[in-house]
C-alpha cells in the first residue's frame, strides 16, 4: 500500500451533531479523540484513510495537509 500523506482534520462545528460515528470507524490507536467526541483535530493523522469523512452523516469533516 502506498504511504498516504498525513492530514489534519477540520470539523465544521456548526453542522456537527456530536454523533461519534467518526470515532467509531477510526482505526487509529486509542485516544485519537477531541473533547467533543469527534476524531482529534489538534494533531495530524498519518493513516489518512478518510473513513471518518465518508461516514459523517452531515459531511462536516474536511482535511488539509499536515
Amino acid at each position, binding site marked *: 500500500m502506498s504511504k498516504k500523506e498525513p492530514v489534519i482534520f477540520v470539523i465544521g462545528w456548526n453542522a456537527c451533531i456530536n*454523533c*461519534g*460515528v467518526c470515532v*467509531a470507524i477510526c*482505526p487509529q490507536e*486509542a*485516544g485519537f479523540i477531541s473533547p467533543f467526541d469527534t476524531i482529534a483535530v489538534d494533531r495530524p493523522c498519518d493513516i489518512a484513510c478518510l473513513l471518518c469523512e*465518508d*461516514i459523517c*452523516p452531515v459531511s462536516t469533516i474536511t482535511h488539509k495537509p499536515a
Partner: protein
Amino acid sequence: MPTSQYDLVIIGSGPAGSTTARFAAQQGLKVLLVDKRQELGAPIQCSGAVSRHALEEVGVTPDEEFIHEPIYGFGIYNEKGERTIIDYRRLKPDEYGAGEGQKPLGYVVDRRRFDRYLMTQAERAGTEVWLKTEGLGYRPNGDGGCEVFLRRFNQDITVKALVLVGADGLQSQVGKWAGLRTHIKITELASCLQFIVDQVETEGLLEIITGHEWAPGGYAWVFPKGHGYAEIGLGVIPTMTDKNAQWHLDQFIHQSFFKERFKNSRILEIQGGGVPLASPLRTQYADNLILVGDAARHVNPITGGGIHTALSGGQIAGHFLAGFLNEGTPPTAQNLEGYQNHWLEELGNKMWKLYDVKTDIFRKNDIRERDALLYQTMASYFSPHSEYKKI
C-alpha cells in the same frame, strides 16, 4: 489521596454499564461506575425502541419516568410502500392493548431518562457513581489487579480494581487499551440521522421502511415518540451510496411514498449516531478486563437494536463477575474467557446466526433481489411465528 480499591470499575453508564453494575453490586461486589457525560444519554444517539420483555428480563419495571409511548406492533414496508402489518392488538387481543389487563409489546423510551433511571437503580443497589469522569487507560499491575486512570472534573485519579469493564459504547476505547481487535468495517457501520418531528401521525407501531432507494445498506424508520410527536430516521452504509445520511433523510421525507404524510412535519430535535451491523467481537476479554454492550458490538445485526442486548449482556456480565470474584478466581484473560463463553451460550450464538442471515442479504448484488429479501426477512423477523428467536 489514597488509591481506592474496587472489585469492578465500569467505564460508561449506558444500559450495558449500569446493568452490569446493578447485578454485581446486588451480589456484594464493590463497584465504581464512571461516565464522562454530565447528563447520561445526552446528546441522544438512539431511537429508544425496546421490548417490554427485554426490560422485565433484567428486572426493570416500565416507568413513566422514561417512557415516551407504548408500542403494540410493527409496520414493515417495501421500497414501493406496500406493507406487512404485525399488530399484536389484533393478533393476540387477550394479551396486548391499552385496556385493563392488557399490555404493550414494548416502548419507545427517552434515553436521557432511561439511562439515568438505570444508573439510579445501580446506585440504589450499592454502586458508587461518578459523572464527569473520563476513563483514560488501565494497567494490569502484576498482583492480580489493575490500575485504572480516570479524570474527574479535571483531577487525575488512579483507582485499583480487580476487573475493568468496558461499557463505553460504540466509540469504545477500552478495548483498544488492551490491544483487542475492536475495529468495525466501513461496510458494517450504519451512519444514522433522525429528526423528532411534530405533525406526523403514528398508530402505536414501529414502522420500518426497507429498500435501497431510501436507505442503502440499512433501513428507514418512523416511530411514535409520545405527545403526538414522531421520530423519522434512517441509517445508510457509506460504501453503498455517494450521498450522506442527511441527503437520504431529506429524500425520504420529501420524495418517498410518505411525502404526503410528512408534508407538514416540523423538526423539533436532530440526532444521529452509528449502528454496527456487524458480528460481535471475537475476543471480548483480556487480563483484568471484559467488554459489554456496543463496546463488544453486542448489537442485533438485522434490526440494529442494541438496548436489549446491552441489558441482557450487562446481566450476564454482572452475574458472572460476582460469582467469579466471590469465589476468588484470579481475573486473568484465560479465566475471563468464561464470561465470553457464557455470553455466547446465552445470547451470542443467536447473534452470530443473525449476522449470517444479514450477510447473506447484503451479499446479493442485484438490488431488486436484495430489497425483496430484506423486506421478507424484516417482516418474518417481527412476526409472532418468527423462526428467529428474538433478541
